[in-house]
């Protein structure tokens, strides 16, 4: 029990220190409004990436359509915020719930049939679904004019600020951590390691796979809803399959089956993308994409099992429970072709 107490304290201390640090930096003008935007974006991306971490990192379902759910959340919440909300805080909360629920509902409808597919085939089916959603967004204005279609949707109220996003960021981390170390989480990881064995042990694999998928997509929807209320402009290109690859990169580079890995990589990734702009300067800005790609390749060549290799930072470990991740030499077995 003593350990649990210390851990909670550590967590609270970390949160308070981080919050104080950010506020101080803003106060002294070190953190310009541009970097605040990047910080908020990094936390939003983290929430979405945590969703994919549940789906792929912990349950082993190769999904390449994560950005579609991010987009569904963003568009749902954005439409509510723009038409009824107008910056009202109550409507903002309703929009967040609606965005997450919409993503979850679509995930349930699409997940029930396609989650029967395995590895690469599931990846391609979800990728195809992502492209279908993108086409839907491009043409959405023909059915609902407010959604803007291919030209994008503007005039959204900017309700979400650093505090709100930070709050949801923490809540998402806590939620996912507690889920992963619960009975459900153990069912998820058992499906990742060996679906047939899990089934033989009496785990209702269909139910748990769908549950992981729906929950993960709901988190993507929540991230999208926050995004819609942080940036005044939504465009279908922000939610296409290339964006899905971003989430995949984060989860894999962080290390499958590691929440700390997902969180650290998501934040690092957002700052890397923007940081490169400053490091390179005006003259070499064209090289940004090249260097980004090189960093990607070199990182994965050096750490094929991900930066964290299924390990967790101290405070991400649950109180009293051992981590369910198998600490073998190979790391978790989730992946293609298994």
């Amino acid at each position: 029990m003593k350990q649990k107490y210390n851990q909670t304290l550590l967590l609270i201390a970390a949160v308070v220190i981080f919050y104080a640090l950010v506020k101080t930096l803003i106060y002294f003008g070190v953190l310009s409004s541009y970097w605040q935007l990047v910080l908020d974006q990094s936390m939003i991306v983290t929430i979405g990436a945590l969703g994919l971490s549940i789906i792929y990192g912990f349950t082993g379902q190769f999904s390449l359509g994560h950005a579609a759910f991010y987009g569904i959340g963003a568009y749902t919440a954005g439409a509510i915020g723009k038409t009824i909300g107008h910056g009202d805080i109550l409507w903002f909360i309703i929009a967040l719930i609606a965005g997450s629920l919409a993503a979850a509902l679509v995930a349930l409808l699409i997940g029930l049939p396609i989650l029967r597919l395995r590895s690469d085939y599931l990846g391609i089916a979800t990728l195809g679904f992502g492209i279908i959603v993108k086409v839907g967004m491009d043409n959405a204005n023909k059915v609902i004019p407010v959604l803007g279609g291919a030209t994008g949707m503007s005039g959204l109220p900017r309700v979400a600020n650093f505090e709100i996003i930070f709050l949801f960021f923490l809540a998402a981390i806590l939620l996912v951590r507690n889920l992963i170390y619960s009975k459900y989480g153990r069912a998820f990881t058992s499906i990742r390691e060996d679906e047939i064995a899990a089934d033989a042990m009496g785990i209702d694999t269909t139910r748990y796979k769908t549950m992981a998928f729906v929950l993960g997509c709901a988190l993507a929807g929540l991230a999208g809803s926050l995004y819609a209320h942080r940036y005044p402009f939504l465009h279908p290109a922000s939610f296409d399959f290339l964006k899905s690859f971003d989430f995949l990169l984060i989860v894999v580079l962080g290390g499958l089956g590691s929440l700390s890995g997902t969180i650290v990589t998501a934040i690092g990734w957002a700052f890397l993308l923007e940081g490169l702009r400053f490091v390179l300067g005006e003259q070499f800005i064209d090289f940004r994409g090249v260097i980004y790609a090189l960093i990607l390749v070199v990182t994965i060549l050096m750490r094929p099992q991900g930066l964290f290799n299924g390990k967790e930072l101290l405070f991400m470990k649950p109180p009293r429970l051992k981590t369910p991740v198998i600490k073998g030499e190979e790391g978790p077995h989730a992946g293609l072709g298994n």
Partner: protein
Amino acid sequence: MEHVMGQIINGLQLGFMYALIALGYTMVYGVVKLINFAHGDVFMVGAFVGYFGFSQWGMPVPVAVLTAMAVCAVLGVVIEKIAYRPLRYAPKIAALISALGMSLFLEYFCSLKFVFGPNYRVVQRPIEEVHWQLGGITVSNIQVMVMVTVILMLLLVQYMLFKTKTGMAMRTVSLDHDAARLMGVNVDSVISATFAIGSALAAAGGVLYAIAYPQIHPFMGIMPGLKAFTAAVLGGIGIVPGAVLGALIMGQVETLTAAFLSSQLRDAIAFGILILVLLVRPCGILGKTETEKV
């Protein structure tokens, strides 16, 4: 009716084009079980090299095609050596991320000013387009050229796979890496050969694409690459006739949707069909369902 026939011919042209790219995907997948996301970008490099060949360096079209194929064969082998070989025994997903990284690298590197530049280039057709009337159907010489080239290459690939030693080695490696090595097959060189052939096919596809749809740019590989890959999955990935069948279906679906429904919906319908097919046949149209090992 003539309009429909004309569209079907257009669909065939597009389908054959996809088939060339899909062949490379499916061969590589068959041998190393890796989705080579950089394949679409090899196709782009092929298109550019071919374009420079016939418009800048004054090569005749067949020479330009061969040059592009040679350059891309080397490129494919180099990519495999640098980015995929070190990860051969790592988790599959690591190689996939590395492939994505290579794809991004090729795209951004090629759009640098001193390489190909970021802009769209309009390709001056090296051959005059001629339309022929065949029993009420209009066929252009470019369409005929595309189809003939593609069929020729398909036959070559089939011949190579089933009548040559390299082909036999490829089929062996595809079945079982370790057993192939035990039987004295040099797995590394077989994989290199697969990448070389697959990339050369993509390059040929790229040059034909540049001639048939005369506009090229560094990011042109993404969509055709994705479509071709989808075609390979649709037909059953790892199976050569499956790739061609899938590609022809994709070509028809896309062209007919664009012609008779709406050009904006064509991607949605093409991928919708993919999902439906996968639900009925989870391993593609010609794919065999493997029994689950416990």
